[in-house]
């Protein structure tokens, strides 16, 4: 996965629960504690790893320093922090580059779908677009106005 495919609230939920456990816990234990199936938890773990907030090794997951810092940030701070981590990911980096070259730094949904399919080789560009827009919004990188069909750099 190169784009996180879980909701932001799940990421936060996992990280905060992890903090409750002192920063390190067996993954099966935390799944049980959160009343989640392991299958449902793993994508969240993957996403957290992708963003650099969590480390997974031999059945345990633990908060990284980055993750700890993230949790201690306020509402705004977390968003800014998230934005930085997203930019380190290839899809977001490329997308931002692509959009910066456009006039008014804006593209349409159609252009995004084409970009995802062609440049990032996404099989399901529609689903990918939903996630990239959602995380882009959370990280204060993108704005999307569906009425005017405009995705704009923040």
């Amino acid at each position, binding site marked *: 996965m190169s784009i996180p495919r879980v909701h932001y609230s799940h990421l936060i939920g996992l990280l905060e629960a992890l903090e409750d456990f002192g920063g390190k816990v067996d993954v099966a234990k935390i799944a049980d504690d959160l009343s989640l199936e392991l299958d449902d938890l793993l994508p969240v773990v993957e996403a957290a790893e992708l963003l650099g907030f969590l480390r997974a090794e031999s059945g345990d997951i633990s908060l990284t320093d980055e993750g700890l810092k993230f949790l201690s940030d306020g509402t705004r701070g977390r968003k800014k922090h998230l934005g930085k981590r997203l930019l380190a990911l290839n899809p977001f980096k490329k997308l931002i580059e692509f959009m910066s070259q456009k006039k008014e730094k804006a593209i349409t949904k159609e252009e995004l779908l084409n970009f995802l399919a062609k440049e990032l080789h996404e099989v399901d560009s*529609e*689903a990918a677009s*939903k996630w990239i827009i959602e995380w882009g919004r959370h990280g204060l990188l993108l704005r999307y106005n*569906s*009425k005017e*069909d405009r995705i704009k750099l923040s």
Partner: protein
Amino acid sequence: MSKIKFLILICLSFLLLIPTVYAQDEIALNPFSIFFYTLSSLIRLLIAFLLSLTFAITYGIIAARKARAEKILIPILDILQSVPILGFFPAAVFFFIALFGGSWLGVEFAAIFLIFTSMVWNLTFAVYEQLSSIPKDIEEASESFGVKGWTKIRRLYIPAIIPKLVYNGIMSWAGGWYFLVAAEIISLGSKTYILPGIGSFLASSAYKGDFGNAFLGLGALITTILLIDIFVWRPLEAYANRFKYDYVSTIEPSKEVVFPRSRMINFLVRYPRPLIHRLSSKIVTIFSNVFSMVGNLFARAYGKLIKNIVVTKIFSYLIIITLFSAFAYGLILLILEQGALFIESFRLLFVKYETAQLVLSIPSALLLSITRLFIAYLIAVGWTLPVAIKVSKSPRLFNSLMPIFQTLAAIPAVAFFPFIFVLMVGLPYGQEFASILLILTGMQWYLLFNLIGGVKSIPGDIDEVAKTFNLRRVVYWKRILLPSIYPSLVTGSITGWGGGWNALIVSEYITFGGKIYSVLGIGALLDIAAYGLGNVALILLCVFAMIITIFIINRLVWRRLYRIVVGRYRIEY
């Protein structure tokens, strides 16, 4: 920006003068006048539609919000809906035309009024039904935040009804085109008023047996309807999409295509494809913006008006007083000038043998008409149900077939006369077949559009449940599909029969090539009364008989079915 709007308004008002330029005594049956005739009809339809919208929204909001008013308003609406367009002829002739002293202005008003009556009822019902079914939690939430009065209308009611207005607007326009003939040729016995328009053009060609011009006229009609579909309804549907309640899961985007690209355009011009795509999307976007701009303009103006309660009260009283006095004036005129005619027509009815016979034949005529309606209904359900299900399930089919259906729905019965004529002459009982076929054209589209709407509005999550349980087709049909569309089936049947009753007047009595073909039926009787004898009393008697019959059927059959279906099957959010 406002300068442009002003300019548009000026241009529009100039367009209104076009009919006067072409006010002639006879319809010129040459291909060149077709353009101006079509334009005149368009303008009439547009004005009638705007009036219908205003009426529907106002009436619908009052009926939905005030329980006491609802008890009177809805039955009245029921009755008005069942009055065939010819039933309004006396009102049209004696009120509007007389009011303006027989000048062309009065005739135009009369025609617009008649078209209005063929457009407005389904719109009003749609507004009323939609407002009565706003999800409870959204209504509660708005109330809890103090949203009331004009804010409530603007933020809650109007957005809620926009999808219905667009969908029913399409149906209304189809109805308007369908009855254009009856509206543009207003005839009451000796007096005939013909307005320049595509409806009267088609009727004249039919009457003269002029196949060539009839086909040309039909071509012009179809082209116009297609153009309106591409440039008006498509963008409006795209605009209305955002107002729909979306109960599909939030990760998946709504399965609706946001900008439905006209397959017609794609089909007609293959290359260069990207350019055409961009062009058609641009057109759709421009027109959507125009409509939202116009809509906002209206809303703001209406809002400013309503905000000041004193002004609103004065304004409404003024309107009521004006309407009342106009009505009274017309009534007085009617009694003074036409009173004698009225009494005379009643006398004639019972004195002359022929007319008395006609009166006595009303019951049997009714019975025969009902039989024909029933047969047509069975045929209609037989084909619309499977087609609606197939079409709603496939976005491809939907996008390509809907414009075709809308076009077909709008073709007035007159246009089918040449084809029907061939049928009638050939077969035994040909006229009966012909009338049933023609009734079908007035009935089936209501069923089809309602059913499609019903299938499409099955919430995505119910469909998903069906998929997860891997239901066998029969079970799916029995437990999920059919129960979900029962309400639309009933609504479609109610409006379909309503359309059928109205279609009787153009199905049971046909003028072609100078000859009259008719079967015994209440529609034929009405036509004879209006066009043949000009006997107002007979018109009223026939209309009265129809209304009572329709009313009884409504109460005994439809309302009961509707209550059962809504009670048990309405999907509650």
